């Protein structure tokens, strides 16, 4: 802002005259009556408010002074002066008055702002230059730049990008279920048909009622008849049973065909090349679940049917007695017994009657003797001894059928530990023991053997006996203390002879089948001894190194016998071949004791029973059944044995 300077200006009255002059032109213009080419006429217009001044007044000179003082500024500002403690007028008053102001945009060249601005301008210019340079540079490169421009589809250099996942292909699958089964049906119906149907139904109902009535009557009146019918059906069942039995045997024959072949045809070929040796071939095993844990106490072949045999089951153990069982097996059916009978006490011995082959005598552990008829198939003996009829008081160790007596009644002997050898006779209804022949060992023992009496008390317990094959009144009895007594049915008061050789129970005595004088004894003292009943001392003795359970003569030779021992071995001797060693010593069962042995009368097989309830059949190899001819000639056989005995006696002497 330019400072106000005090200026002197002279004002004259003539000064406002230009104003009137301007005013004067206007009327000139507005005057219409004049020509255009005429110079404009001056016309003075005076405003109405203008003061009208006189000449003098106009002449008067008025001086106007321009001063630097602000006319509106206060001149009398007083302020309290604390120093002097009085009011004092302000000597300086601000005289500045601003009428108009305007900021300029021009800068001084040398000012800082200008310098800064220049610097910025310079940098901007540089940046632009650089950018220009960059823009131009690729263009100069040539090809690339050209391609680039071609690729650009549009000015925005836009490129589209998209990703799409793969869609799984669609697949159709159909299943159709089987439609429910349908059927078609046709008929027609009329009143007549309906009527007929009802009538028919009525008829049927009536008939049914009649039948029911008839049935009711039958039931009332003919009950016994129906029962008969029922029985018939049972009979039918038994016929069926027979058929089933045949079938069973056929199946067995099939399943055991190899054993059956062995039984029939197999011969141990190696026997031809070895002297004095033989083998036993195990065939069928007869085992029954019911005989589990029972001892086989006796085996007996049926004299008529050579494939049938009875096995008695009981127990030799005094402490473990149980019920007894008798099973009749056939070689044709090893899997199941043909007949079974059960007894209250353990079975100790049994014997088939030589002529009436269905009769089976049985001795029990409790002293009872019984007779079964195998054909009956009922689990009941036809005869049985009781306390009343003088049964034994101790186990019956052996029973033996006798020839029919004078009155044609059947009779058998039994021997028991109570010291009696008893003759039982079958009368019509009961078993009598005091019949034609009565033999009590008690008396005999006492009379004949006073030494034993003092030692043992009163009785000698019988363990076994056997009747001489030729002179049937003669028999030998083996006892528990080891003595063997020769007795006769004729003299029941004393022994004919006493043979002392064994130290322990004599389990078995057996007469030779051909030679009438010779018998064998088997004992718990590990020995089998050969006796001549005319000689008080044993002729031969065979030590088998274990308790001998049973011994049996072969039916085909006088010199062959077999023995079983409690270590499960079977020993077969042929004295004709070897007088000291067995022809065959073979272990048959592993952990069991063998208890019984018996020869089949016809076939070359033996049966051995063990204390596990199992019976094994064994086939003898050819060396074990050498014979003088078939049928064996009794004389030749006797001679054979005689010679051997002579040699043995000589050796002793």
């Amino acid at each position, binding site marked *: 802002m330019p400072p106000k300077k005090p200026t002197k200006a002279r004002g004259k009255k003539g000064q406002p005259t230009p104003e009137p002059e301007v005013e004067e032109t206007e009327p000139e213009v507005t005057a219409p009556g004049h020509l255009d080419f005429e110079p404009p006429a001056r016309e003075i217009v005076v405003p109405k408010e203008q003061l009208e001044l006189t000449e003098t007044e106009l002449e008067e000179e008025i001086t106007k002074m321009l001063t630097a003082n602000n006319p509106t500024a206060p001149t009398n500002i007083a302020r309290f002066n604390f120093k002097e403690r009085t009011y004092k007028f302000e000597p300086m008053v601000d005289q500045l008055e601003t009428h108009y102001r305007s900021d300029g945009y021009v800068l001084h060249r040398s000012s800082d702002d200008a310098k800064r601005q220049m610097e910025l301008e310079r940098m901007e210019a540089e940046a632009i230059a650089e950018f220009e340079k960059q823009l131009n540079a690729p263009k100069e490169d040539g090809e690339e730049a050209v391609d680039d421009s071609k690729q650009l589809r549009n000015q925005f250099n836009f490129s589209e990008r998209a990703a799409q996942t793969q869609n799984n292909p669609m697949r159709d699958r159909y299943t159709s279920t089987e439609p429910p089964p349908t059927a078609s049906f046709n008929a027609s*119906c009329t009143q007549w048909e*309906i*009527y007929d149907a009802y009538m028919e139904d009525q008829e049927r109902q009536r008939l049914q009622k009649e039948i029911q009535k008839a049935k009711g009557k039958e039931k009332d009146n003919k009950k016994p008849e129906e029962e008969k019918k029922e029985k018939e059906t049972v009979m039918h069942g038994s016929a069926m049973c027979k058929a089933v039995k045949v079938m069973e045997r056929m199946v067995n024959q099939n399943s055991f065909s190899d054993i059956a072949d062995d039984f029939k045809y197999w011969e141990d070929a190696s026997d031809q090349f070895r002297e004095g040796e033989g083998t036993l071939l195990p065939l069928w095993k007869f085992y029954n679940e019911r005989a589990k844990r029972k001892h086989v106490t006796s085996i007996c072949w049926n004299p008529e049917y050579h494939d049938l045999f009875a096995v008695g089951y009981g127990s030799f153990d005094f402490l473990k007695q149980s019920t007894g069982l008798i099973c009749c097996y056939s070689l044709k059916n090893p899997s199941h017994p043909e007949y079974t009978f059960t007894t209250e006490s353990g079975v100790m011995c049994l014997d088939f009657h030589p002529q009436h082959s269905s009769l089976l005598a049985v001795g029990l552990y409790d002293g009872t003797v019984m007779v079964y008829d195998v054909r009956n198939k009922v689990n009941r003996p036809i005869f049985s001894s009781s306390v009343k009829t003088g049964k034994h008081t101790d186990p019956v160790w052996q029973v033996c059928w006798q020839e029919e007596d004078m009155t044609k009644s059947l009779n058998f002997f039994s021997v028991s530990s109570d010291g009696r050898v008893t003759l039982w006779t079958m009368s019509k209804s009961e078993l009598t023991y005091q019949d034609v022949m009565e033999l009590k060992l008690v008396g005999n023992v006492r009379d004949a053997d006073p030494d034993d009496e003092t030692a043992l008390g009163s009785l000698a317990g019988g363990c076994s006996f056997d009747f001489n094959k030729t002179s049937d009144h003669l028999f030998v009895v083996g006892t528990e203390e080891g003595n063997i007594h020769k007795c006769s049915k004729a003299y029941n008061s004393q022994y004919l002879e006493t043979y002392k050789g064994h130290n322990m129970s004599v389990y078995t005595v057996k007469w030779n089948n051909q030679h009438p004088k010779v018998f064998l004894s088997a004992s718990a003292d590990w020995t089998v001894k050969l006796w001549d009943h005319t000689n008080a001392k044993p002729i031969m003795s065979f030590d088998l190194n274990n308790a001998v359970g049973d011994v049996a003569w072969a039916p085909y030779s006088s010199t062959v016998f077999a023995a079983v021992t409690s270590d499960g071995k079977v020993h077969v001797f042929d004295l004709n071949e070897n007088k000291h060693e067995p022809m065959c010593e073979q272990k048959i069962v592993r952990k069991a004791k063998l208890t019984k042995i018996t020869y089949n009368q016809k076939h070359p097989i033996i049966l051995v029973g063990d204390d596990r309830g199992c019976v094994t059949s064994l086939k003898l190899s050819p060396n074990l059944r050498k014979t003088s001819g078939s049928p064996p000639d009794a004389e030749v056989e006797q001679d054979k044995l005689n010679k051997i005995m002579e040699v043995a006696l000589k050796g002793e002497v």
Partner: protein
Amino acid sequence: MAEDEPMDMEGYLKLAKYPLIKHTDMLEEMRVEAVEQCVSAIEKFTTPEGETNLEKATQMIKEGMDKKFGGPWHIVIGEGFSFEITYEVRNLLYIFTGGTQACLLWK
């Protein structure tokens, strides 16, 4: 039959009051139920004069059978008609009721 022949109509109707199964291959349980349905439906829609509202009876039987055993059942009741149908095995019943009506049910 011969002795029943001269029986008059009334006697016959008296006699033939029970439902008589002419032919069926239903199982015991279903059969008993179906027969019961038929008998009760026909009884219900028979006026005392002997007129039967067959339409309603069939409808009732059908509804009952559909509800009990499911599936589309077809019912025919009438005094005289003949037919040949294909049916789902074990789902056919053909009975006579009341001596005059034949009732055929099948699925």
